[in-house]
């Protein structure tokens, strides 16, 4: 099947408006007869559920957590971008569009990104109307800060808990519709398959995670909003339950999976401390507004620091290497995430890592304390303040901005980041790849949509900070509710979809067989045993830098591991109770397939772009080297084993932006 992105004709700034003016609409009376399933209740799924229900559709929403409010969007810290230009620093829709396409290393679809930038301002208006308590200045107006890869301040925030506040906003909008009966909420439920009837997505098979019951749910359209697949690495900043299952099931039923190898390794995470580690914790990118990243200049100092014989605070300014400021003077500590992560790896690989594992660099706030403290002393009219007073005043300002992040760091690491610099190291955080969608956010299965992190569309090969929240809410509040209407306009006479059909029967049977296999296999290794092994292969060979040889080995190793899993996995308990191991077994089984496709995609993309860095393709200075012949989206069609997947290419054309070398120097 040829890929059709369905991007509307016309100048980019008019595309979305023109599109909305000409699509089919569903009459309000008819919306009452149309059902929509939404899988996932994070920013994308939650906002989509609420909006679709407001419009009049009957929504069934599914979450594996015990409440929609707990989806992992809640953990996003730093902020949400919007081209409001409240700071008068030259921001505009075009500039947000430009930054996002450039930040994505020219591997995203222009028209989708422009639309995202266009609706970004509405998101802020909407959230304020819902009672989201964004940070404000003393005049009562909204405050902004800066994120990596941009030269303006366009990020709105609510302390270090922006994702939480935005999700609670979407959750409150859902609550209003749940109260009206327009959303039927299925908490502690997991989607285990999509049901296709006459070529269209018409329902799902779900499992009640408390009782183990297998349920059939029908609808006129199915929306996948289940987030990213970072947990394929076992260790990531994702929640423990985050998984690819919903996206992978639709892939196996006909939806193409795009750019699986584009993964974001976030530069500022707390370094790992031991083999028992279950997850990694992110320290918001917003910290790079005020923190400076460095390692010692001399290897002797590194040695002394590792042995505990010297403290980082004892090193003078000229004994420190502020390597981001040195290599990228224009953007300094605010280079995009892929660039910052690779630079940290480069220093640590060269032996400059500052902790026992050799995998950590410093994030230092000392100069911010002085800068803010001096300003505060002036504001408060303190004459000739002592250094201690300046530091104290400065720390108060930093505390007001990032207090919860500093507290989080201290609780985990047991060191006071006000007194000694934080230690950080890159960790898997976000996946730009995902289910392929067209301009309507529809997958290659008619009636099956993918929104938010679950799709691939807006971030290219690297996502800029504070853009995930923007995309999730843009898709859910403002894009999908229009595009889905165009499709559902044909369904006004369809009537309720029956679940008593051979298609539902067959899908349910497949789901039951797999579950029965798991609980009866009684092999010798736990589910985590396999998940950890997969994670190690992924991190070692498909991590921050990749090469052909490593990727070929990874493909073989994952394939072998998958065979072992299906023979020797051990799932305790039964299938008729709350059984977390059983739920996890299904998720890891899907990761074991995705992981191989991921490595295959990375192997075939013989260039470096954004988060995908191939060692064979770099400039003399060690920067990513893009190749013109790879200016396309890789969309994979399922054909059984991951090795048999068929590649389809969607060419990427840039008519409104000149494709240049991506420089932050």
């Amino acid at each position, binding site marked *: 099947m040829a890929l059709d992105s369905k991007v509307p004709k016309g100048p980019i700034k008019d595309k979305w408006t023109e599109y909305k003016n000409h699509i089919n609409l569903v009459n309000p009376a008819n919306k009452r007869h149309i059902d929509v399933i939404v899988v996932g209740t994070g920013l994308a799924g939650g906002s989509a559920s609420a909006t679709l229900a407001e419009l009049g559709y009957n929504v069934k929403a599914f979450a594996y*957590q015990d409440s929609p409010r707990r989806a992992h969007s809640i953990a996003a810290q730093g902020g949400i971008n919007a081209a409001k230009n409240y700071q008068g620093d030259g921001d505009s829709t075009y500039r947000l569009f430009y930054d996002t396409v450039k930040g994505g290393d020219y591997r995203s679809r222009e028209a989708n990104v422009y639309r995202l930038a266009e*609706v970004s301002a509405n998101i802020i208006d909407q959230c304020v109307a819902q009672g989201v308590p964004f940070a*404000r200045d003393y005049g009562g107006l909204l405050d902004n800060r800066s994120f990596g890869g941009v030269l303006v301040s366009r990020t709105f925030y*609510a302390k270090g808990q922006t994702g939480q506040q935005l999700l609670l906003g979407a959750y409150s909008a859902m609550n209003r519709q*749940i109260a009206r009966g327009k959303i039927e909420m299925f908490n502690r439920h997991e989607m285990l398959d999509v049901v296709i009837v006459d070529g269209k997505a018409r329902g799902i098979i779900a499992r009640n995670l408390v009782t183990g019951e297998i349920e059939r749910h029908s609808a006129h359209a199915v929306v996948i909003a289940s987030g990213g697949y970072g947990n394929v690495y076992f260790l990531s900043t994702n929640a423990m339950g985050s998984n690819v299952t919903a996206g992978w099931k639709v892939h196996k039923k006909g939806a193409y999976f795009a750019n699986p190898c584009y993964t974001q390794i976030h530069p500022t995470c707390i370094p790992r*401390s031991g083999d*028992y580690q279950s997850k990694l914790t*992110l320290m918001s990118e917003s910290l790079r507004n005020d923190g400076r990243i460095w390692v010692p200049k001399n290897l002797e100092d590194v040695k002394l620091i590792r042995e505990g014989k010297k403290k980082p605070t004892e090193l003078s300014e000229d004994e420190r290497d502020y390597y981001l400021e040195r290599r990228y003077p224009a953007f300094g500590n605010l280079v995009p995430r892929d660039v910052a992560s690779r630079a940290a790896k480069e220093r640590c690989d060269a032996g400059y890592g500052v902790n026992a594992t050799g995998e950590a660099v410093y994030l230092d706030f000392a100069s911010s304390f002085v800068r803010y403290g001096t300003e505060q002393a002036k504001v408060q009219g303190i004459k000739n303040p002592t250094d201690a007073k300046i530091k104290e005043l400065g720390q108060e300002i930093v505390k007001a901005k990032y207090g919860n992040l500093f507290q989080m760091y201290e609780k985990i690491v*047991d060191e006071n980041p006000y007194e000694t610099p934080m230690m950080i190291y890159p960790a898997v955080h976000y996946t730009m790849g995902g289910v392929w969608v067209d301009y309507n956010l529809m997958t290659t299965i008619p009636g099956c949509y993918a929104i938010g992190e679950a799709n691939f569309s807006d971030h290219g090969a690297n996502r800029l900070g504070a853009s995930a929240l923007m995309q999730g809410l843009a898709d859910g509040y403002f894009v999908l509710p229009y595009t889905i209407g165009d499709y559902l306009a044909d369904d006004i006479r369809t009537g309720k979809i029956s679940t008593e059909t051979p298609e539902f029967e067959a899908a349910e049977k497949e789901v039951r067989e797999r579950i029965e296999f798991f609980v009866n296999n009684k092999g010798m290794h736990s589910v985590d045993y396999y998940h950890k092994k997969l994670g190690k292969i992924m991190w070692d060979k498909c991590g921050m830098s990749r090469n052909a040889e490593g990727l070929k080995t990874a493909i073989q190793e994952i394939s072998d591991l998958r065979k072992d899993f299906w023979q020797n996995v051990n799932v305790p308990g039964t299938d008729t109770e*709350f059984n977390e191991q059983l739920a996890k077994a299904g998720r890891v089984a899907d990761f074991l397939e995705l992981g191989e496709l991921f490595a295959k995609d990375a192997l075939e993309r013989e260039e470096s772009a954004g988060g995908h860095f191939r060692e064979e393709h770099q400039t003399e200075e060690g920067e990513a080297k893009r190749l013109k012949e790879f200016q396309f989206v890789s969309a994979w069609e399922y054909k059984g084993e991951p090795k048999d997947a068929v590649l389809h290419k969607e060419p990427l054309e840039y008519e409104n932006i000149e494709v240049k070398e991506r420089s932050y120097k």
Partner: protein
Amino acid sequence: MNLTLKIWRQKDASTKGKMVDYKVTEISEHMSFLEMMDVLNEQLVNSGEEPVAFDHDCREGICGMCSMYINGEAHGPDRGVTTCQLHMRMFKDGDTITIEPWRAAAFPVIKDLAVDRSAFDRIQHAGGYISVNTSGNTQDANAIPIKKEAADTAMDAATCIGCGACVATCKNSSAMLFVGAKVSQYALLPQGQVEAADRVKNMVAQMDLEGFGNCTNTGACEVECPKGISLENIARMNRELMKASV
């Protein structure tokens, strides 16, 4: 370190539960409490026993899913943390640790340490929102300036993660800190004031219907709250309810 764990095991809501003793060895002080539980569960799975069921997800103190009552305290001995942020350095070699689920009639046990907190969702359905459609046609976000103190205080209240520690720790199993926080967030913002009277009445009525107890100003909830939600929110809710009722 080596530890003895006394853990509440209960097959499901209708089966009687009991405390069971387990031993774990070579626990690192840098582990989080839930990583220690992972070690126990891996041990149980490998010896053919059923692992301990417990709720957890983000493991960074924000989703509100984890919920253990450790040595008689909600989220354990540390302050300002959820169970997933509690670290083993708070314990000593040879300690015996007692681990129970949240205890409240309104939070029935699902299995072992996992409880059903859907009562919190139902209270939110009763009024935990502002009635505005997500049309994108609302007024500009800066059209109504909001005093920084009001916005900051609303944010402090909105920080609640809905974990239920306040209920678990309260001798009356009261949910007033949770409900007070939500009522306060909206009551402090001009957008929320339009429906404030109905909101507080409906949410309090639902709270009572769910079987949560009343507040007797013990203040344990504020002490155990991982997000430092202040008792002032309960006072504000009471004022709002009074205003709405006269």
